[in-house]
């Protein structure tokens, strides 16, 4: 019983001290990513989350902004934007190739004005 509590206290304090160290390496950024729908949201968040070093990513359908928390020792905003372009989503600095873009679902085609139901 006592040992159990001790073990848990140790686990907890380890986690907390680890968190404290991480603070300095953590960057929080918000930038625009092109997209239109909930499917885009899924794709954008997934691509960001799968980028090594990214801890958290949420894209807002209305403001088109991606909020990202990442470890700046392992990745950078540019790397994340490249990952997004690789799945078809443009940002200010990095654009998706036409080849990738054309493979998006028809409802996600944010560049032209044609709206199609998926």
């Amino acid at each position, binding site marked *: 019983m006592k040992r159990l509590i001790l073990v848990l206290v140790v686990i907890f304090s380890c*986690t907390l001290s680890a968190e404290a160290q991480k603070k300095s390496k953590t960057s929080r950024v918000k930038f625009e990513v092109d997209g239109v*729908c909930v499917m885009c949201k899924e794709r954008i968040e*997934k691509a960001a*989350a799968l980028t090594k070093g990214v801890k958290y990513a949420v894209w807002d359908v209305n403001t088109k902004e991606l909020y990202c*928390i990442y470890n700046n020792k392992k990745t950078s905003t540019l790397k994340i934007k490249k990952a997004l372009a690789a799945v078809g989503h443009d940002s200010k600095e990095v654009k998706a190739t036409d080849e990738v873009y054309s493979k998006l679902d028809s409802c996600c085609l944010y560049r032209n004005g044609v709206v199609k139901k998926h």
Partner: protein
Amino acid sequence: MKITFIKILLIILPFMLQAQTEMKGMAMIKTKDGKVSGLPGATVYWLGTEVGTTTNDKGWFTIKYKPEYKKLIFSYVGYRTDTITVNEPREIHHFMKEEGELEEIILESKKKNTAVSYLQSTNIVTINEGELLKAACCNLSESFETNPSIDVNFSDALTGTKQIKLLGLTSPYILIAQENIPSVRGASQAYGLTFTPGTWIQSIQITKGAGSVVNGYESIAGQINTELKKPYNDDKFFLNAYSSLNGRLELNTQFSQKVADKWSTSLFVHGNLRIAEIDKNNDNFLDIPLAKQINVMNRWQFTDAKKGLVSFMNIRYLKDDKQTGELDFDPDFDRFMTNSYGSEINTERFDASAKVGYVFPETPYKSVGFQAAYSMHDQDSYFGFNEYAINHKSVYSNAIFNSILGSTLHKYKTGLSFTYDNYEESVNSTDFSRNENSVGGFFEYSYDNLDNFSLIAGLRLDAHNLLGTFVTPRLHIRYAPWEKSALRASIGRGKRSANIFAENQRLFGSSRQLSILNADGKIYGLNPEIAWNYGFSLLQGFNLFGKKADLTLDFYSTSFENQVVVDVDQNPQQVLFYNLEGKSYSNNFQAQLNYELAENLEVRFAYKYYDVKTDYLKGKLQKPLLPEHRFFVNVSYETTKKNNGAQWRFDYTFNWLGEQRLPFTGSNAVQYQLPEYSESYSLMNAQVAKVFSDKFEIYVGGENLTGYTQENPILAADNPFGPNFDSSIVYAPILGNMYYAGLRFKI
């Protein structure tokens, strides 16, 4: 039976045909202040046809649909004309954009009443409010009748209580929680499900198999969690009245109010009453008890979205009185006399609970939660000369910390739990009081590659004063080998102390002598129950004739290392409790097909097979009163909602139960012997609801439409104080067909 089915089909058929030919939707705009509103007068037509319409003053439209119509065109002066591809009829919400504006569309598909998840690692079925409406009456125990994963049975012929089973195991093997706080356990095991009115419930999640370690070590067959309506977004006022032809009256009133910027409160008041004495089978016993219940809950919610803080506080008081037995039984004169047989079950319960959740604003993937609950459950009862009293005080608390390991692909939950249970229990003046307490810690890791693989691995360590110190491991894996599929596997361990009397109260309504054969264990002389559960499940979605369908194949196996065997087969005058020696297992296979036959018309088929066997003193036997085979069909249809929410809803459920093994009665006098197996039978329920508007609806329905009843639900009803009396052998309904009507009103 056939005739009834055809009749119902005839009623439903015209709606089916109509349903295929119309679809509806809404043209919408965003106004300058960012609000969304309907666009009246917009033209909507099918490309290349003359089939078209204009939207009404709210922006809604209804248009004829044929499968060959593919392109739907929206147009309005000053707005861009849009073409939408439609592959199947469904509700379309289309945003119109002013010329020059960027375009987007929002599609809303209907929220399903019962949803299976393709993405979660655990095998979870969620029942939403819409599904709960189908079971018009009245409490949690009756909420599962349209769901094939849970079997609902009568527990006995005296109290008319409904008992649920999951994977062939009774409710004590299921962790039943209310907003993740274990609720139906200990003393409330027998009647606890009837203490949550159905109208309080927002949704129910049923987890098959081991489940999470976060809420404790007790679950073996699975977990059922109910979420109640939240004060913050609940209707201001809700009223539900229900009456059945057999004299059951229920009234639910609910008030919700925002009291301050961040505070909301709800008051739930439930009352039910059954005063009509019914004895349709003329055995001189009430078919269903006289009952009254008052149940009041006050709920507070604090929400501060900016600070990431949410909190709930509940207090609840319940008083439930039941009287049953022979028709002329009068408790004041006949209690503990042989004039006539009777029983009273009086329960009082008080609950208080609080929850706090906090999300760190800087790191939204990190959160802490704390839950604490206190309950006091007091039951005083007698069944003929059997006296049973239990007072159970319980404290539960759980602290949870959620975070990630490196990225949101790797998440974990960890925390500490504390429980305390004080039981004052007496059976025929023999005292069985005891205290239980436990402290535990848990860690649950989950991984999700955001594509086709996820897993949850949980471990908890608990130190319990009677169960000892033990580890509870649980693992769930999901893999999607191709599109619209989910292969799941799970394994987990559960351990619990069996409350042998509270869980088997139905046996008090018999002349059986209760004996415990072991003496060296810590709980009633018995050892704790330990079981491993293994599960394998496949979910596959597909299109059949252009309509959505999904097929689920579940195989679950529970194997007991130790079980408290409840043996009613040794002889009809005894019930024995003893530690398992040998094997006890429950193997269950379920195949379920959900199919959207036409728009708004859904059918659900299920076949279930149960192989539940235990080594009794007599040898290995199938668990009594459990059918090996079951078949289930549910058909539901609703007309498309009008603008004001008006619609019709129809629901029909069919159940077929195979033969069930009956407990041994061969040594009784010939007239008190039962066959070895019951006959198979089928049951039908149906309901029609007419929704006049979002605010008001009425419903009528019938249960057990074919009127199938068990012939002699009470053995030796003619001699209740003799040696053969037994009201616990119930395999079919006692009441014949039962009709009801009710209304719902909300503001």
